[in-house]
């Protein structure tokens, strides 16, 4: 083994690495960013659980139990009402995570040592958080019961739970909307970026520019097949989800497909922008991957709930298109809601699509510089 040669090689590789500023930045920044994100920001434990309380006969016992929840600093009461009718709209709108429904005779039964009934309904569209909410709730109730027992009172609190929207806590239900978002962005942004930059690298883009074609025509022509492809992918993914995994479809499929197209347009525009600012296929691929897939998996709420993120990180999630699409997809598939509930998210996605498409069209200049 020629040690001189070996040393020469090591030195050479070090030079290559240190002199490639772009790659170096990514290699050093990425672990740092990931450590920060995973260490501080992305958690599975939850902190701000929004609770609706339905208390037909409030008295100091029910209030006492409620204050136990509040004092854990994890629960926050967002609404109180005397009728259970308020719950469903709040759940569907995503304004509440958990509902605490007291039986009308809760207080009196508590005093008379009869079973005091309590219904806990949880939004389990994300089964991970749903389970966590349930566990915290049970813990609070159990400690309340233990306290009362320690005071030599015989009490019996009977809790019934309902996991709304996802009674069997299927995690696949959680993942499918996120996966659709991921697949769409992969096909649209990544492939578009690669296809456009390949044209530039090969030199054929020069010939296309020196022709009657306007750059916008070139972009649309290259991007349209990917729109069709993405659409086909959504159909396949949904079909697989429904046929193989029995993911529920409670809302309008037509609406879901329409929103998917909207989201795809956003991703396509991103792909075109990436191709416009990068100078090689390799750079386009790296940028597309890092710029779309990474935020889409980490910051979209697909895996790590946004509710668990620190407040400084939450604004960043607003610019991640997948974040809005996942809310829409989960809403339609698991909660069966429509535009009346999802109009805000749809509007945001539409605005993103228009802005990005306009920017993408502008970015492709009719000249080489």
């Amino acid at each position: 083994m020629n040690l001189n040669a070996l040393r020469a090689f090591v030195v050479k590789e070090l030079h290559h690495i240190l002199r490639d500023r772009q790659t170096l930045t990514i290699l050093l920044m990425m672990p740092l960013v990931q450590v920060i994100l995973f260490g501080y920001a992305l958690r599975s434990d939850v902190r701000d659980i929004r609770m609706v309380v339905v208390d037909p006969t409030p008295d100091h016992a029910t209030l006492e139990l409620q204050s136990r929840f509040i004092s854990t600093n994890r629960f926050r009461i967002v609404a109180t009402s005397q009728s259970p009718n308020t719950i469903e709209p709040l759940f569907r709108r995503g304004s509440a995570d958990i509902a605490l429904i007291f039986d009308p005779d809760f207080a009196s039964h508590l005093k008379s040592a009869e079973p005091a009934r309590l219904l806990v309904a949880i939004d389990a569209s994300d089964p991970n958080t749903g389970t966590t909410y349930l566990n915290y709730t049970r813990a609070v109730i159990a400690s309340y019961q233990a306290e009362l027992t320690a005071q030599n009172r015989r009490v019996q609190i009977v809790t019934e739970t309902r996991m709304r929207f996802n009674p069997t806590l299927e995690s696949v239900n959680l993942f499918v909307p996120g996966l659709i978002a991921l697949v769409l962005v992969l096909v649209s942004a990544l492939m578009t970026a690669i296809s456009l930059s390949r044209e530039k690298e090969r030199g054929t883009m020069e010939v296309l520019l020196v022709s009657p074609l306007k750059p916008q025509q070139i972009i649309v022509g290259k991007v349209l097949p990917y729109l069709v492809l993405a659409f086909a992918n959504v159909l396949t993914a949904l079909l697989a989800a429904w046929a193989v995994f029995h993911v529920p479809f409670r809302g309008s499929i037509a609406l879901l497909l329409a929103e998917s197209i909207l989201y795809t347009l956003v991703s396509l525009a991103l792909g075109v922008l990436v191709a416009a600012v990068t100078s090689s296929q390799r750079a386009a691929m790296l940028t597309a991957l890092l710029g779309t897939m990474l935020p889409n998996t980490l910051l979209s709420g697909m895996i790590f709930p946004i509710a668990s993120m620190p407040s400084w990180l939450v604004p960043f999630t607003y610019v991640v298109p997948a974040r809005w699409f996942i809310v829409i997809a989960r809403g339609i598939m698991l909660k069966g809601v429509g535009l009346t509930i999802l109009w805000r998210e749809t509007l945001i996605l539409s605005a993103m699509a228009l802005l990005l498409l306009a920017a993408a069209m502008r970015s492709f200049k009719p000249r080489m510089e």
Partner: protein
Amino acid sequence: MTNAVEVRALGKSFGPVKALDDVSLDVSEGELFGLVGPDGAGKTTLFRILTTLLIPDTGSATVLGLDVVKDFWKIRSRVGYMPGGFALYPDLSVAENLEFFAAVFGTTVEKGYELIAPIYKQIEPFRDRRAEALSGGMKQKLALSCALVHRPDILLLDEPTTGVDAVSRREFWDQLGNLKASGLTIVVSTPYMDEALRCDRVALIHGGKILEVDPPHSIGARYTLPLVAVRGANRFELLQSLRKFPHARAVYLFGDELHYTDRRSDASPEAVAAELREYFASRGQEDVETRPIAAGIEDSFMELMGSAPPPPPRPTATAA
């Protein structure tokens, strides 16, 4: 007779590098015009300005009477452009490539067939073969067909013969001659000096500057110093001896001989040739032939470059 191309004091820089420096030239309608120079001379930059892909920093240019900056859309539909490296789609077949480029210009292969037939017929038997599987010569013919199919008013070909074998190169220039005969204006760039002889007029370009513009056979006319060709055994030794000759200005290898340029502009070439024979005899180098010759394109190019060695290295241009 209007000019198909007019270039006036064109300048273009990329960062600190001047790719084009005060370039001016004209191409007449129906002319076969050659742009001759090595890599980095500025040929591709000039072509990109003429095809409206780049904007010049200084100066102006018109193609077919249209300004390259203001009227670029009009120019783009009338130009046939072949960039360096044959822009073809490797995973499409010969026929698919041609049909695509025809469609891009809003026409069909049938409409352009008559014009491209002499070239395309040679590759038509391979119409279903993928472009990546073609030889260099066939790619060249396909790329030319794609540039011609929409019947352009002017052809701009950037180094169409680079990296292609000698036979294909000859055939290509034969085709260009035929096209010119039909009245088409053609501007070609090439690093091969011998191809300059096949053009009506030639511009020698080096380091972003135009050295000379003339019909190829006139280029040598400006060569004022005596030029002598030397033949003999042991060429390298002859070369080294010649360089020691007191009046030598430049001595270079040239095919199977050496070309010697004398410093004295007033000396007669025959006298110099005789002097050299005596010089060799005195050094014991027998059997050396010397004869005065007229300067060829390469001689002129080298003389115009400056017979001093090329300047110290500078950063290369990002586009040549």
